[in-house]
């Protein structure tokens, strides 16, 4: 009886949240999978169970293959780019610098702005127009003598999605910077001091003392950026509108669900997106909870 008293109140307190999550998260995920396994391909049909038919059929769809390729390229560039840039900015700021608060604000600021409107600016900046009609970054490069940097940006059919990652890096690297900065400063001073006393150069202090401490931060950032990337939608629609050249799974899902009114196909794409996120996230969650228990 005493033992119940120890944990029962906690469970009761948590119950409303648990019910809300059960309904709004798992209920709706279940709804989605049920739809994905039905043949409800228009607004009228009731839809009957067809198993995994939609899941296999999707891979015969040229547009889907393209969207997946785009998403992979985007993810690689975005995640690496934001990690490296955020890490580098944090490194620059680690030892304190005049106006640190100002710099932090500038780097974090893109996170505060909605892409609904900045999309137009990015569309202008990343325009591939030739020099005589120069626009945006190409024009800027041209005018400062860096004309060779001018390129097609996201309108290149093979590597364009790498350019699409630039605005995403712009948006998220400040946040990664904040995470890393907190990480850097979480390394106890004594450890750094001890290494210095042992005759380590400043670089070696970083290399052997500070960086190993950052692994959990890196992992957390990786997961955060990874799942944003797999779901990326607003940014792509704001910059490129819904064009095949910049198609990604989330946009394709939207098109199938709301433009073509094919609920089953839209749900199938959503299911794949969920699975991709799950593959990324579940091992991480399990690992975190376990390693915490060990500690």
């Amino acid at each position, binding site marked *: 009886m005493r033992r119940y008293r120890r944990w029962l109140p906690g469970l009761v307190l948590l119950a409303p949240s648990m019910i809300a999550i059960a309904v709004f998260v798992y209920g709706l995920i279940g709804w989605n999978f049920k739809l994905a396994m039905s043949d409800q391909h*228009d607004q009228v049909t009731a839809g009957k169970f067809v198993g995994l038919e939609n899941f296999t059929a999707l891979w015969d769809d040229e547009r889907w293959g393209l969207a997946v390729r785009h998403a992979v390229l985007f993810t690689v560039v975005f995640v690496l780019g934001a990690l490296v840039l955020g890490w580098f900015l944090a490194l620059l700021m680690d030892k304190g610098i005049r106006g640190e608060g100002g710099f932090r604000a500038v780097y974090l600021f893109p996170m505060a702005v909605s892409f609904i409107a900045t999309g137009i600016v990015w569309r202008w900046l990343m325009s591939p*127009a030739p020099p005589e*009609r120069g626009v945006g970054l190409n024009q800027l490069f041209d005018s400062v003598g860096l004309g060779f940097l001018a390129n097609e940006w996201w309108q290149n059919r093979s590597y364009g999605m790498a350019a699409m990652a630039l605005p995403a890096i712009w948006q998220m690297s400040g946040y990664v910077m904040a995470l890393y900065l907190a990480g850097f400063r979480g390394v106890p001073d004594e450890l750094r001091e001890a290494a210095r006393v042992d005759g380590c150069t400043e670089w070696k202090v970083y290399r052997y003392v500070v960086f190993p401490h950052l692994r959990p931060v890196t992992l957390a950032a990786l997961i955060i950026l990874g799942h944003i990337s797999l779901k990326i939608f607003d940014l792509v629609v704001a910059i*490129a509108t819904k*064009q095949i*050249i910049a198609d990604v799974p989330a946009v394709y899902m939207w098109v199938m669900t709301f*433009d073509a*009114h094919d609920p089953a196909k839209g749900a199938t794409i959503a299911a794949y997106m969920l699975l991709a996120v799950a593959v990324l996230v579940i091992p991480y969650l399990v690992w975190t909870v376990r390693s915490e228990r060990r500690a």
Partner: protein
Amino acid sequence: MRRGWTAAVAVSLAGLLAVTACGGGGGEQGGDGKQAATKVEVFSWWTGGGEAKGLEAMVADFKKKQPGIEFVNAAVAGGSGTQAKAVLASRLQANQPPDSFQGHAGAELLGYIKAGQLEPLNSFYDEQKLREAFPQQLIEQITYQGNIYSVPVNIHRSNVLWYSPAVLKEAGLSGAPKTIEEFIAALKTVKEKTKKIPLSLGAQWTADHLLESVLLGTLGVDAYNALWTANADWSGPQVTKALENFKTILGYTQQEAASTDWQVAAKNVVDGKAAFNIMGDWAAGYFKELGKQPKQDYDWAASPGTDGVYMWLSDSFTLPKNAPHRAAAVEWLKICASKEGQDLFNPAKGSIPARKDADRSLYKDYLAWALEQWSTNKLAGSMWHGVTVNDRWHTEIDTAVGLFLGSRDVPKLQQALAAAAKNSGQ
């Protein structure tokens, strides 16, 4: 601006204070658009520019005639784009329709019709004598299985070729090309003789828009109209020829097309940066806003090979089943259908009325030309703007064109278009 700052600071302070007060539940404001009997909620994607002004003018007229009914403007931007239709779809699915919503007249509404979400307006048409007010061909093209489901408030023209007289002169061209062959030759001349863009194009949807004009210009009106019927022949040599033309013409567009809005694509012409642009006649309204002079800064003609054919599209309003304020919605539809309403809306929006009895003195420059053409031309429905294809078909065509922009593979495009016609379920 100062109010913005004070408000925001007040917000933050209120926020901090409320932590201790344990925050209100946010239940300040009840749901709207549900109970009151004296409302009409009208859903559209007209949120800016001339279209919003036109809507406002009609709303003002509505308020004057129906002072007891509150007009709730539920406009969400992005009709042909993203959000508006998605929001609408979710509301209809949840059986929470607005009292009336905007849709392109024609096959675009088929999804709603088949799902039983719209009321037929036949008796409304009879009462308001609309069958006589609208052109016969229009009535035919918006009738589905004997029923009409929407009230067209305007007519836009899709097949318009906009050109820069200055650039044409520089290239040594005497006037607008009449046929597709002449058009291709003209594009070639512009490319060789000037540094200007031969044909200014925008993002992917403007290529879809171009495709319908090229199809119409190559096939002619009867074959074009037949494409959207049950026994359409998408695999024939004429379609192949049209698609070859499409490919050739695309070769004369600028490389930055995908990151160009339709406005910038059209502006290239009036700024003398491009020779041609094929865009719907909403471009005329935009040029007017820019302060450009018709016949000097820009000129127009039917898109090549389509002289005498009016490829039309129409914004229309509907009556959803279970509209919460049905009677008020009918009053709104009366305004939309009336001569006054249409004459208030269209000059502002930059389109012509669907009615035959409009006051011609209100329509100047391009619109005068359009009115005149509307009364004499044969009609063809616009594919891209919702007249001839349902949503699924529309999406598949868009996908096929998008993939084609990358591959430039004509046989593959033709196959995809044929498959789209077959799978449409229309």
